[in-house]
């Protein structure tokens, strides 16, 4: 069956603020899902959108699929239960920086550690929007918010470092307004077996406007970000004249054509490499020292938790002598009163 974006839109009024980055992500998702269906031969009823609490977590109501709007921080646990109960479902989890990394941090890292086959889109706007503007675990040091009137005094998380620290098998990053790239990443995330985390850098027009602007501004975006694609050289810049090389144990930005550097010297992105070190360096890159990495940074194959749970049940079941509850009740020591 061929689907259109319209098939995935629900009849509910979308209530995000005008100009909110979430609108663009919703548009990306409803465009990506028909493509996912086509590539993987899925039908729409297999999709479940799960969320926690926060602005972005309203998302499931806007999708004409099965959906579960959970409680704060627990979307990952809900997704885990859904996927383990029925591994044929394709589970998409919508969460924010507060939902996934503060109140839900524990579930987030453990889902990644287990490599359960769910797709997590982490809307990172570096602020609490729904509660009206308090700092989040990804807010920049010193950010002035309602709960940090003199600036925050705590360091932010880099979600990518957290994912890779838990030995995540898939990590990608994108910008709300990069609709085409978003779709490309979402299809790859869907194809990936295991926990896929897409960090979506989203703008909150009301409480943290322009938080990503220093590199997301269209005027400078190509020079200050790099889109990574497996098998392609790490070249970026408006004029495709900048690249990344390894200098000792560190990444270094170089200008192609200067100091004898040619395209051949530029690193080629290997998203499938098991070497987590290079992926960590890429995920850690910050402007102005480096371009911010977008695209699929890591995509490696490994057994998934839901498969392991199912396979173990099948394996034990085949060997089990106890096949019914009646047999269970009579197992072990029993005696008869005659």
């Amino acid at each position, binding site marked *: 069956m061929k689907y259109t974006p319209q098939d995935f839109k629900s009849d509910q009024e979308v209530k995000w603020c005008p100009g909110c980055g979430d609108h663009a992500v919703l548009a990306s998702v409803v465009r990506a899902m028909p493509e996912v269906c086509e590539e993987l031969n899925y039908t729409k009823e297999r999709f479940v959108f799960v969320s926690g609490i926060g602005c972005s977590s309203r998302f*499931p109501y806007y999708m004409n699929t*099965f959906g*579960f709007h959970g409680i704060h921080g627990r979307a990952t646990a809900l997704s885990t239960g*859904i996927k383990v*109960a*029925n591994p044929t479902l394709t589970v998409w989890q919508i969460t924010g920086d507060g939902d996934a990394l503060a109140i839900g941090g524990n579930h987030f890292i453990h889902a990644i550690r287990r490599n359960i086959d769910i797709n997590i889109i982490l809307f990172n706007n570096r602020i609490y929007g729904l509660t009206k503007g308090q700092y989040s675990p990804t807010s920049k040091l010193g950010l002035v918010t309602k709960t940090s009137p003199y600036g925050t005094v705590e360091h932010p998380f880099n979600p990518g470092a957290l994912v890779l620290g838990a030995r995540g098998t898939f990590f990608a990053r994108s910008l709300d307004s990069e609709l085409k790239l978003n779709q490309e990443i979402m299809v790859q995330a869907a194809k990936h077996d295991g926990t896929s985390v897409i960090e979506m850098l989203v703008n909150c027009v009301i409480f943290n406007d322009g938080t990503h602007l220093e590199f997301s501004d269209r005027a400078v975006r190509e020079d200050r970000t790099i889109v990574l694609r497996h098998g392609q050289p790490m070249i970026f810049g408006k004029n495709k004249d900048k690249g990344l090389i390894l200098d000792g144990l560190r990444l270094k930005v170089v200008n192609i054509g200067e100091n004898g550097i040619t395209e051949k010297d530029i690193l080629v992105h290997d998203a499938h490499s098991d070497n987590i070190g290079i992926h960590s360096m890429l995920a850690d890159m910050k402007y102005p020292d480096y371009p911010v990495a977008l695209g699929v940074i890591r995509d490696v194959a490994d057994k998934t938790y839901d498969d392991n749970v199912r396979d173990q049940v099948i394996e034990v079941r085949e060997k089990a002598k106890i096949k019914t509850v009646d047999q269970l009740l009579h197992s072990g020591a029993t005696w008869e009163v*005659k």
Partner: protein
Amino acid sequence: MQHKIIDAQEVVIRFTGDSGDGMQLTGTLFADASALYGNEISTFPDYPAEIRAPQGTVAGVSGFQVHIGQTEVKTPGDYCDVLVAMNPAALKANAKWAKPGASIILDLDSFDEKGLEKAGFKTLDPIAELKLEDYHVIWAPITSLTKESLKDSGLDNKAIIRSKNMFTLGMCYFMFNRPLHFTEAYLEKKFAKKPQLIEPNKKVLRDGYNYAHNIHAIPNTYRIEPAKQELGIYRSINGNQATAWGLLAASEKSGRPLFCGSYPITPATVILEELAIHKGLGAKTLQCEDEIAGICTAIGAAYAGDFAVTTTSGPGLSLKSEALGLAMITELPLVIVDVQRSGPSTGIPTKTEQTDLNQALYGRNGECPIMVMAARSPAHCFDTAFYAGKYAMEHMMPVLMLSEGFIGNGSEPWKIPNMADYPPINPPIIDSCEGKFCPFERDPERFARKWAFPGKAGLEHRVGGLEKNEAGAVSSDPLTHEKMVAARAEKVARVANYIPELEVMGEQQGEILIIGWGGTYGHLYTATKELLSEGRSVGYAHFDYINPLPKNTEDVLKRFKKIIVCELNSGHFANYLRAKCPQFKYEQLNKIQGQPFIVKEIIDAVKSL
């Protein structure tokens, strides 16, 4: 001395020692052998929270009490006829549980100066210090005899000393005329992979038996004939195991695979462990990262169509409160098992209590009534778990099952039921619908909504913690909210149409009605029987269903002049009844010591009314 065999109706024996002395195993083996022999049994493990508390101290004493009888045995017994104490600390901590004149078996080797000092004795004569002169004390050099028995066994010293509990068990088998073959068969099975341990253990067991026979220090041995039980096949079962099996039974009857999301917590962990063993019956068990993930994975699984459960104890239930509200408002089937322990906070983790009732009834934000059931005995956990599953799935709602450390860890013989005698479980599963699916449309009888799993085309719908209208759209409309709150409450109230009526034991009307719920059943039953045998006008009503209450509750209460509510808390159920049936006056018997009732306490309280 002429050895005499006394025929006894019942005997209580208490095994105590250091928490590393293997007293839990010794007690369990004694209980199992007695159950296999055909006695009625009831057991009570009483152990410290520390796996290995400081050796030789009172804090590190572990005990296991077994009550065996040829007539009805409903409690592990208040006081013991025989006390085994493997060290001075065990004697010090447990002498108070020995009946006047009881036999006390002591390991002479451990009663040295150092041991006595560690246990806090002030003199070198513990018998005089504890005023046990009138007791029948049997001093047996258990450690040295075990060493002697196993000196040629090839086992190392540590392994030999570990076997001293088998020597003690052998002595007790002689004292109670128990056959050895049940335990011998157990040892053969347990050490099938370490055959070098089978013979030494059997030998030390036999040597203990023969030693007790030879020393003539034991004037009388007891014979407890097999109980006159209903015909059938029996087994011994503890409450946590029975809970796990009851859940598996509900899964089988409903055809929904069992999903258990849980987190280890004393004293509920065994349920998770037991379910994890039975993947062969299709059970999926997730040991989650925390209690909240336990219930939330279960809620996710329930949405996707599994029979979902989560198991915990009081502090874990506190952590699950918010998610329990989510299960309630999304109207998904879920069984939450709370094996209560002493609180608040960490409290006394290994000790029993009924102090979670208020939390079970009220511990959530918003208008959030849920069904609450309570198990009365170890074997009764099976039926309670089964029916919790049945009501959860057929009525589309969370059901909270209360158990207690006392019955979760305790065991009793159980006439094995036949699954064919249990009712079917028919959840309101829907595969397709005409037009748009309205997730919160209810059936007019039960008020249950339909269960529509993801994966079924045309049934796409959204659930969540936000208030919704019948069609499933988010709504903050005042009247819709009030209507939905009322409908969810009504659904729980209507379960009263499906549960059994309250039964009264003893007098059906009269002077005093004794009321209890949960694991106090055995003690309250025994106390009632004694009061009846004294000619008192008492009835006893035990509540297996707490919310909703059985429909005939008021009918029962009004037939008695006085009502006494007995519970191991400060009066949670009494206050609940005051709210539900305010026309009656309720007396209370409460105990909050981390220990079960003593039958005599109940009898005294009733007589004092």
